[in-house]
């Protein structure tokens, strides 16, 4: 059992990115690997996804330390056996402070600035990756010396003969001429020399030296070349088998996008990386971890300016696409992935359980009618009738309410308010007040369930109920970080509210609906706080706050529930080409996953291309709006959105302020 630091198995949200390799083995879900087999192929691969989609987790699977941990624990490594002959090295751009490369750009002559920054960045990257590759070879050699069966497909041979051959080959390689000092004797020496090279760069970038080190000036190479030659020398010398692939990971590529925005250096950093891919050098293969916006916006290569071609220069593993729900739930990967992650977390915490642990913990989601009963409790019918309505209708609807069917009663009220019934004066006709005609179409009810419930809860100042396995999966919006945030918050709520049960730790908890409502509400607030991080954080927070409150106002005010889909908005696609100030904010919201964008097939006669957006489902509990997307969203314009944005008072640092802005006091827990 992995020694988790905390009683909550979901405490460490980033466990597969930050814990040690042994923990990784226990917690990594291999379910995604079948959709991501390119990861082990010989071509370049871009792993793309929103924050928390699992990019780093997937890339960390390639690490040598992870593979050694798999071997030691006798756990099957989740890559096809034929594709395990590889060794990987990597760099995490944030951790290595790649941004420092830009730090002394202003000292460079203006006419050569871009060229020199590109040369420095390429060489710094070459040094980091080469150094890490040597480190991995040495690490694996040590592990194989202790246990020769470990990673037998990549058998490292560090005999004096192979090392000498390797060094001879390396010194003959063009890019290594001056890259390291002469007369080094071993791989270890080369590793040390590369570390020295990295230190020289950092020392200069950190202003510890005034002059750019001369030895670096003369020995810089274009991106990728030293690694390709290093990989070739390692294979040819026999240090590693001739069929070993060298996979080079570059994670947090979006860091470069953010760096470029603030340094007036164009897109030079991303272009340098693109230039390494553009070489199509079969000796190494890159694995780039990035977010959509950072990759899509510039795929030209430094130097040539030629754009990379998807499928030809690189393939894409789009995690959001893999985990997204299709037209039908059948074949939807995310629920299986989530369940597997939960099961591994529970296993690691020593809570082994046979069966569906998700269902045991969260139960089934409450049916709409049950939720309605919880919202109204045993209160008198609070529905609003028009004075002109026939007494028989009022009595009939009140009877439905008093008979324990408040949702049916609500539907009755809503149905009578709808245009068709109003035109036919149905509410005046006592003779028809005896059945539930709104049930004739199952779609009518299905489409209006959530808004009707929201209105019932709103009239009673109740928090909305979200609970049960299905709703928790839906709220995660196919994002594993969102899902884990919910699990963590619900578990923490259960611990807080049930200290005696939590102490026992012998059985899997069965969370009450109350614990789930509170936990999900907390998770929603955490998710809202995430908007306040990243690009255009305040503008995004302001727009999302405005939209959330706008959707709620519209749905609460729609007494006939004629527009049950107004939890989203739609814009003409060509509006997004305008220079309106909201366009980049909407795009930033999309890129950060605050808004979910999709094509909108319009019902308008002109059939103009439209796009529609909804809040990330996990934001819905905070704004107390349904997460279900149904029917038509609000057809709007940038000018209407501008009013909403401008009228939204400056958002505060915490989500509570958004709620306080509404004239409602403390929310009650429904039916408890």
């Amino acid at each position: 059992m992995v020694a988790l630091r905390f009683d909550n198995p979901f405490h460490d949200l980033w466990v597969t990115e930050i814990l040690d390799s042994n923990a990784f083995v226990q917690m990594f879900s291999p379910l995604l690997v079948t959709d991501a087999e390119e990861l082990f192929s010989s071509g370049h691969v871009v792993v793309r996804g929103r924050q928390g989609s699992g990019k780093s987790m997937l890339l960390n699977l390639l690490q040598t330390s992870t593979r050694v941990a798999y071997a030691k624990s006798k756990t099957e490594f989740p890559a096809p056996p034929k594709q395990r002959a590889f060794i990987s090295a990597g760099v995490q751009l944030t951790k290595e402070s790649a941004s420092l490369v830009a730090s002394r750009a202003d000292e460079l002559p203006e006419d050569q600035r871009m060229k020199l920054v590109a040369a420095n960045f390429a060489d710094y990257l070459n040094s980091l990756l080469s150094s890490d590759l040597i480190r991995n070879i040495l690490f694996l050699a040590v592990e194989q010396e202790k246990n020769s069966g470990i990673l037998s497909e990549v058998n490292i041979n560090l005999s004096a003969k192979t090392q000498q051959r390797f060094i001879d080959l390396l010194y003959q390689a063009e890019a290594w001429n001056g890259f390291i000092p002469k007369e080094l004797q071993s791989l270890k020496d080369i590793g040390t020399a590369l570390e020295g090279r990295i230190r020289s760069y950092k020392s200069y970038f950190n202003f510890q030296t005034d002059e750019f080190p001369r030895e670096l000036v003369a020995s810089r190479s274009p991106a990728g070349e030293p690694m390709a030659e290093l990989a070739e020398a390692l294979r040819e010398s026999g240090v590693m088998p001739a069929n070993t692939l060298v996979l080079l990971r570059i994670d947090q590529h979006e860091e470069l996008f953010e760096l470029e925005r603030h340094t007036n250096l164009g897109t030079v950093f991303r272009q340098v990386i693109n230039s390494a891919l553009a070489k199509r050098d079969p000796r190494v293969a890159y694995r780039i971890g990035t977010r959509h916006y950072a990759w899509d916006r510039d795929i030209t290569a430094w130097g040539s300016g030629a754009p990379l071609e998807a499928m030809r220069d690189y393939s894409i593993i789009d995690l959001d696409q893999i985990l997204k729900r299709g037209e039908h739930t059948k074949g939807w990967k995310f629920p299986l992935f989530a369940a597997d992650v939960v099961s591994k977390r529970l296993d690691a915490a020593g809570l082994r359980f046979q069966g569906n642990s998700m269902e045991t913990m969260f139960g089934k989601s409450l049916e709409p009618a049950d939720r309605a009963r919880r919202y109204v409790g045993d209160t008198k019918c609070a529905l609003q009738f028009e004075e002109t309505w026939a007494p028989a209708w009022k009595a009939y609807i009140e009877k439905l309410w008093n008979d324990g069917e408040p949702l049916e009663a609500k539907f009755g009220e809503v149905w009578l308010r709808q245009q068709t019934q109003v035109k036919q004066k149905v509410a005046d006709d006592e003779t028809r007040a005896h059945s539930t005609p709104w049930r004739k179409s199952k779609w009518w009810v299905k489409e209006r369930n959530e808004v009707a419930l929201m209105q019932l809860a709103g009239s009673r100042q109740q928090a909305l109920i979200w609970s049960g396995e299905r709703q928790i999966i839906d709220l995660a919006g196919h994002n594993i970080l969102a899902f884990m945030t919910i699990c963590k918050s619900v578990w923490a709520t259960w611990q807080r509210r049930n200290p005696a049960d939590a102490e026992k730790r012998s059985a899997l908890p069965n969370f009450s609906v109350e614990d789930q409502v509170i936990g999900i509400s907390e998770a929603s607030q955490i998710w809202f706080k995430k908007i306040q991080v990243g690009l255009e954080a305040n503008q995004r927070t302001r727009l999302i706050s405005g939209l959330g409150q706008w959707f709620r106002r519209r749905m609460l005010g729609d007494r006939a529930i004629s527009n049950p889909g107004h939890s989203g908005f739609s814009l003409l696609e060509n509006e997004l080409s305008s220079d309106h100030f909201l366009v980049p904010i909407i795009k930033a919201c999309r890129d950060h996953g605050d808004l979910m964008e999709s094509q909108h097939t319009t019902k308008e006669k002109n059939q103009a291309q439209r796009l529609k957006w909804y809040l990330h489902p996990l934001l819905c509990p905070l704004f107390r709006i349904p997460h279900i997307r149904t029917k038509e969203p609000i057809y709007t314009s940038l000018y209407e959105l501008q009013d909403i944005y401008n009228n939204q008072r400056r958002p505060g640092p915490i989500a509570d302020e958004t709620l306080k802005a509404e004239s409602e006091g403390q929310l009650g827990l429904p039916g408890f």
Partner: protein
Amino acid sequence: MSIKPWGSIDWLLPRTKVEAWHLITSSSFEERCVGILLCSQQVELKLTSATLLRLTNPPSDFWTDAQPAINKNVEAMHALLDQTPFNEVEGKLLAMPSSLVRPSSLNPDDCESVILDITTIPKRFFLFAMQQLMRSEKVKNLVITYTKAKEYPEAALCENALPPTALQGFARMSATGESPRLIVGVGYMPLSVEELVEQAKNVKLDFIFPFPPASPAFRRNWDLLAMLMPTDPPRNTDIHRVHGMDAFEICERIKAWGESRDVDLLPLGPKPHALGMAMAAMRLDGHAEVLYSQPQSYRPNYSTGIAADASGRPQILAYCLKLNGRDLF
């Protein structure tokens, strides 16, 4: 026991025996930016020259609203400098600090004795400037000054913080391999670092809490602490209460903590705490990294007024970092 050379400006400056100083300060929308110049009229602070840093923020409503206050303060500073020769260094808030605050621009006449007034200079600029002035062989005496504000508004002080990155001049040079200890200075604003704290693979998490805080500052400090503290913090998470103005104490503690492992420093707290963190980082031989999220806009009433001492003079604290060419930390 070593002496920590800091205290009120009128106590500290005479003890340096320096007769005249070159002052580096900045104009701002905050009234307290004039504090050091007001003080120069009242205590024994003879200025030979001055450098005035003027930073332009990215366009925002806040920045537009701040213009009248900036103009007023610049006018007041020019008037207070009166006969003192001064140069102005202008630049953008998001520019690389090295493009603006190198010794050649901050101390163009290579004065031996320099006061760096950090009151309204953003952290990423003054920390870099301090490091450069400490390394400058031409600067023999370096005093840092900080004017306390009368109060802070009950609102978000700044907006749109960039993602946290290593500050220029304070990136880690080499790592020991073990995950670094994360030390967070607690202030008022989270500045986009919640995820960094949450994600930090630190087995040791420390919060430095300014103490004793003035009311209602303590509540806001606790609010931020509550916001940043992971839901279930590591068991060995510690909260250290350190005098909010004692840069030397911060420096000493972090130097001790950093002897055994790498440290990541997040200076969200008072500027003297940030100063102490940077001082320690300079002594930890490249094993420390100072991370910061630069806000892109500041509230025009970020602070109001200037705190006064019992005799009605601005409350200005001074820290002597270098004296007669000798580093004092």
